[in-house]
C-alpha cells in the first residue's frame, strides 16, 4: 500500500494536478463563503469543466472544491452570522460572538486550523481503511450486493428524509427516473413513450444541476428583497486577538482530535452528514469542557469542535462510496457521478482496476489540505471581498454556468430542457418535504441494483430461499431494520422534545 501511496504522490506532483488543486481550493473557498452558495453548488457547476481533463486532475480538483467549500462556509458564518452550510450553524454562534468582540481573526484562524486538522485525520483514515475494507467487500457476490444496496436505500431514505415515508418516497422516485430509457440488461426501452431522445435516459449532469443547484438560486430570488450584508474582518488593537497562538491550539488539540474522530465515524455512516457530526462533536466537547458556559458565546474550543467534525466528514464520507459503491450523502452522490463520468466505477474493484489513479487522488486529497492552509491564510481578505459581492453579480453568473454546464454534458439543447424541468422538480420536492439528495442517490444506485438483481436471479433460479442462505443477507436485513427502528425512535424523541419546549414556552 505504501508503494501505491508514494506512486500516487509522484503522479500528483505535476503541473496539471497542482494547478487543478489550487483552482479547486480558490473556487471552493469563494463559493463556500458566499451565503446561499454551497460546496455542492460549486462542485456541480465545476463538474462539466472536468470532463475533458485527466481524471487525476478533474477528480482532485472536485475534491479540493469540496474540502475548501466546507471550510469556506465558516467564513460567512463567523463574519456575518450566516452559515454558508447547515454544518456551520454552530460555528456561526461562537464565531460571530468573537467577531462582535473584535476577534474575527482568532475565530477565522481557529476555524481554519481545526478544519485542516480534521480533514487531514479523516483523509488518513480514508487512505488506511478504504483499501483493506475493499478486500472484504470484494467477497460479496451479486446476492450480497443486492442486500447491501437495499440496506443503503433504506438507511439513506430513513435517515435523510424529513420523515421516513418522505425519505423513502424520494428514493423510489429517483429509482423510477433511473429506469427511463434503454435497459442495460434486456435492451428494452422503458417509459420512453416513443421519444428516441429518452432512449439514453436522463442526462446526469443537467439533472444533477437542476435538482441540487438551481433550487438554491430560486431561494436567493425569493429572498431578493432582504438587505445585503457586507463582510468585514474586525481587527483588535491587541495582536493576540487576531491570531491563534501555538499554546491556544495545543489547548484545544484534544478537542480537535476527539471531534475529528466523531466526524470521521459519522461521515462513514450513510445518510447522516456533516451537520450531525458537528452537533454531536459540539455537544460532546461542551459536556467535557472546563468552560461549558462559554459555548455559544464566543468559545474558541466550540469553533474547533464544530469545524474539525464537519470537515472530517469530507474524507470519511468517501469510505462507503469507494468500498461499497454507496454514497453517504448528497456531495458523495455527486462525486460518485463524477467518478462514473470519468470512467472510474466506485467500489472495491477501483483499488485493483485503477490503482494508480485512486492513490493519486488520495495523495491529491491529502495535499489539498496544505494548499488550503496556505491559500486561505494568504487570501483571507480576498475571499472575504469575493464573498461580499452582491447577489446580482453572482447569480447571473451561476445561471450561465449552469446553462453552459448542462450543455457541455452532451452538447445538446435538449439537456437544457432537462435542466429546466428538473430545476422545477427539485424546488417542488423541497417544498413538499421530499429530499433531492436521496432522489439522486436512488437514481445513481438503481442501475447497480438492477444488474446485481439480474445476476442474483440467474444464480438462484427458482430456489428463492437461496437469497437468504448467505449470512451477509441476514446481517444487512438486521442492519436495515435497526436503522429504521432507531430512526423512528430518534424522530419520536425529537418530536417529544419540541412538544415539551413548546409547552414550557406557553407556561412561561
Amino acid at each position, binding site marked *: 500500500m505504501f508503494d501505491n501511496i508514494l506512486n500516487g504522490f509522484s503522479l500528483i506532483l505535476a503541473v496539471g494536478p497542482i494547478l487543478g488543486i489550487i483552482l479547486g481550493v480558490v473556487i471552493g473557498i469563494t463559493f463556500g463563503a458566499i451565503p446561499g452558495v454551497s460546496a455542492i453548488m460549486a462542485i456541480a457547476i465545476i463538474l462539466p469543466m472536468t470532463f475533458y481533463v485527466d481524471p487525476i486532475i478533474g477528480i482532485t480538483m472536485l475534491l479540493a472544491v469540496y474540502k475548501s467549500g466546507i471550510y469556506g462556509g465558516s467564513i460567512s458564518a463567523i463574519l456575518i452570522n450566516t452559515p454558508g452550510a447547515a454544518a456551520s450553524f454552530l460555528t456561526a454562534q461562537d464565531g460571530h460572538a468573537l467577531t462582535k468582540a473584535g476577534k474575527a481573526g482568532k475565530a477565522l484562524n481557529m476555524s481554519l486550523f481545526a478544519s485542516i486538522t480534521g480533514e487531514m485525520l479523516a483523509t488518513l483514515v480514508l487512505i488506511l481503511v478504504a483499501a483493506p475494507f475493499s478486500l472484504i467487500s470484494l467477497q460479496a457476490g451479486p446476492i450480497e450486493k443486492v442486500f447491501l444496496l437495499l440496506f443503503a436505500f433504506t438507511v439513506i431514505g430513513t435517515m435523510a428524509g*424529513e420523515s421516513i415515508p418522505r425519505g423513502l418516497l424520494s428514493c423510489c422516485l429517483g429509482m423510477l427516473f433511473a429506469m427511463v430509457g434503454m435497459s442495460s440488461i434486456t435492451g428494452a426501452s422503458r417509459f420512453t413513450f416513443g421519444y428516441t431522445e429518452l432512449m439514453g435516459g436522463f442526462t446526469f449532469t443537467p439533472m444533477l444541476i437542476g435538482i441540487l443547484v438551481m433550487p438554491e438560486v430560486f431561494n436567493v430570488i425569493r429572498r431578493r428583497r432582504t438587505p445585503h450584508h457586507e463582510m468585514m474582518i474586525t481587527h483588535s488593537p491587541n495582536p493576540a486577538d487576531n491570531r491563534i497562538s501555538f499554546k491556544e491550539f495545543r489547548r484545544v488539540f484534544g478537542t480537535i482530535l476527539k471531534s475529528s474522530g466523531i466526524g470521521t465515524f459519522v461521515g462513514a455512516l450513510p445518510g447522516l452528514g456533516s451537520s450531525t457530526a458537528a452537533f454531536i462533536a459540539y455537544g460532546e466537547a461542551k459536556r467535557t469542557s472546563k468552560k461549558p458556559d462559554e459555548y455559544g458565546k464566543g468559545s474558541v474550543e466550540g469553533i474547533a469542535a464544530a469545524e474539525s467534525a464537519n470537515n472530517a466528514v469530507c474524507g470519511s464520507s468517501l469510505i462507503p462510496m469507494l468500498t461499497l459503491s454507496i454514497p453517504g450523502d448528497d456531495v458523495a452522490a455527486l462525486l460518485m457521478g463524477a467518478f462514473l463520468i470519468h470512467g472510474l466505477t466506485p467500489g472495491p474493484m477501483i483499488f485493483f482496476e485503477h490503482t494508480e489513479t485512486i492513490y493519486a487522488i488520495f495523495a491529491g486529497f491529502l495535499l489539498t489540505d496544505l494548499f488550503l492552509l496556505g491559500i486561505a491564510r494568504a487570501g483571507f481578505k480576498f475571499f472575504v471581498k469575493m464573498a461580499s459581492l452582491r447577489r446580482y453579480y453572482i447569480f447571473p453568473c451561476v445561471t450561465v454556468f449552469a446553462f453552459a454546464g448542462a450543455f457541455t454534458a452532451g452538447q445538446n439543447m435538449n439537456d437544457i430542457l432537462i435542466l429546466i424541468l428538473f430545476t422545477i422538480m427539485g424546488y417542488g420536492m423541497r417544498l413538499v418535504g421530499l429530499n433531492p439528495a436521496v432522489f439522486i442517490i436512488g437514481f445513481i444506485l438503481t442501475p447497480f441494483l438492477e444488474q446485481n438483481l439480474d445476476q442474483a436471479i440467474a444464480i438462484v433460479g427458482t430456489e428463492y430461499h437461496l437469497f437468504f442462505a448467505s449470512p451477509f443477507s441476514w446481517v444487512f436485513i438486521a442492519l436495515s431494520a435497526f436503522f429504521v427502528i432507531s430512526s423512528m425512535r430518534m424522530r419520536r424523541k425529537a418530536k417529544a422534545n419540541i412538544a415539551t419546549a413548546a409547552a414550557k414556552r406557553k407556561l412561561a
Partner: protein
Amino acid sequence: MDRRKIDVALSTLLIILSVIILTNDNLVEGGAETDLSSMFLPRVVASLIIIFAATIAIQSLIKLSQGTQPEGSEIIITDGFSGIFIYIGIFIAYWLSVPYVGFLVATPFVMFAVAMLLGGRNWVPIIATSIVTPLLIYYGSREFLRVFLPTWSL
C-alpha cells in the same frame, strides 16, 4: 399554503401513475428475454411508491379532517414566488433563443435580466459583467474544453 392539501393531491397523482405502471404492459418495448423481466424492478418500485404515498396522504388527510392548523414545515410560504416564475420565464426564453441567436448574443441579455430581477441597479458593472462573462465562457469552452456553444444561425 397548506402543504397537507398538496400532499394529498400529489400522493393521489403518484398512486395513479404507479397503478398505471403496475397494470400497463405497453410501457416497455422490445428487449431480450431474461429471468428478470424489464418491468420487474419498475413494478416493485411502483408498489413501494403506492405504499409511501398512501402513508403520506393518510397522515395529511387525518390532520385535515381533525381541522388542526398547519404548523412548521406544513406551511408553505409563498412570498417571492413571482420572482421564481419570472426567472423560469427568462430561462425558458434563453433555451428557446440560444439555438437561433447563439450563446454570445442571448447570454448578456439573460444575465442583465437576472441581475435586474435580483435588484441590481449599478448599470455599468452589470453590463460589463454581462458582456465579459459569456465571452470568457464561450472562448474558454472552445479553447480548453473543445465544447462549441451554439452560434448565430438566423
